[in-house]
């Protein structure tokens, strides 16, 4: 990345394979715009998201982490997103408790048909994280360039 460019946040989006990753594809097929600093990692189900991955992303320099999965009730594996929902609720609350801004973490349910929602969600999330600024609290100094 060039040095003189204005700071933009680095966003890691974990998307479940069946709904949200397809929703992201649909956003692409519909030529909807969202910022290039959103990078998607495909996981089989939202319940595959280990809190360690989120912390890892923050360590390595992510400024925001978002999890997208099938709407509750629509999980390909029938119950995965219900577990993900509880896990993330508890984790986000704990991170908040430790002083990490709530806006840096998010869960959204995006179906395979919701390309527009995916793009809108990413735009909104990038905006929120941009307003929060750089992630200094949960970064690892050794990973800074």
């Amino acid at each position: 990345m060039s040095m003189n460019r204005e700071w933009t946040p680095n966003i890691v989006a974990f998307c479940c394979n069946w709904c949200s990753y397809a929703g992201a594809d649909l956003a692409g097929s519909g030529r909807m715009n969202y910022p290039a600093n959103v990078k998607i990692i495909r996981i089989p189900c939202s319940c595959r998201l280990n809190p360690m991955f989120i912390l890892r992303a923050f360590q390595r320099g992510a400024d925001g982490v978002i999890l997208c999965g099938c709407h509750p009730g629509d999980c390909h594996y029938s119950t995965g997103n219900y577990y993900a929902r509880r896990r993330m609720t508890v984790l986000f609350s704990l991170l908040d408790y430790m002083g990490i801004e709530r806006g840096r973490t998010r869960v959204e349910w995006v179906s395979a048909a919701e390309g527009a929602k995916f793009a809108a969600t990413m735009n909104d999330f990038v905006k929120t994280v941009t307003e929060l600024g750089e992630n200094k609290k949960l970064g690892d100094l050794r990973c800074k360039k």
Partner: protein
Amino acid sequence: MIVNRLQELLQDDENLQFVGWEKGETPFDRTPKTFTAETLGNLCYDSFCGSNLSKYLLSQKTDKKTVVLLKPCDSYSFNQLCTERRLNRDAYHVIGVGCKGKIDGEKIRKTGIKGILSVREEGETLKIETLYGTTEIPRKDVLLDKCLACKGKEHKCADEVLGESEDTCVGDKYETVAKLEAMTPDERFAFWREELSKCIRCNACRNACPACSCIKCVFDNPNSGVQNKAAADDFEENLFHIIRAYHVAGRCTDCGECSRVCPQGIPLHLLNRKIIRDVNEFYGDYQAGDAIGQRHPLTDFTFEDSEPNAERKGGGK
């Protein structure tokens, strides 16, 4: 009284072994120990036996039937370990021992009383003999922090109960959690930075914790991706304690061993207690270890669970 009862048990089965505490060098030293018929006389149970023997049982597997002394609060951990199939309930005869709060030697030292040679309990007062003279201190002032958040005098898994217990809980155990919640994120961050920066990664919290009972902890496992031996920077200090608190979410019985054993006095239980409070609030009251076979909230769900993004600031029970 306890030893007499244990000796009675021996008459039925001379191969019994006993898990309890033994007196050590300093007035506060009470070492978890396994006793046999020959050594049973050394077993001791008094106000200094604060440590939780449930975890100790994990490393004491033998073929012999074991009699274990558990305080009311330890019984939750015992149940949780049975739920997680780490202990076999049938292999133990649990004696619920009475507890009126345990004394924290560290707290006595922190009051400035040094060179302690002996501590004697006289009712609600501790008579302390030191190298520099004798002194007194009210018992209630030097109870372990975990006793101030006592879960009550009920034994959750005792086959028999010996001795009276008292609920030593003082005030609202979530008070400090609520206080932290009421702070701004930056204040909270500063609070935890100051506390966690003291961490020396001795792993005492982890190794004493009955919930942190993994045979191979992720932090010791080179394949886990998070293995590390010492926190090289702030992030790793945070990481260790976040992951540790998260891994025991729903399983932590709030036994308070983590904070008791921390050589640097980090109030680690405040992380666990936050999760307990959240889980109770979001998913209904739940006490880990209340009974064997419970399904903990993070391995369960309802269709109507609240969403993770909801703004949950401070307060609110």
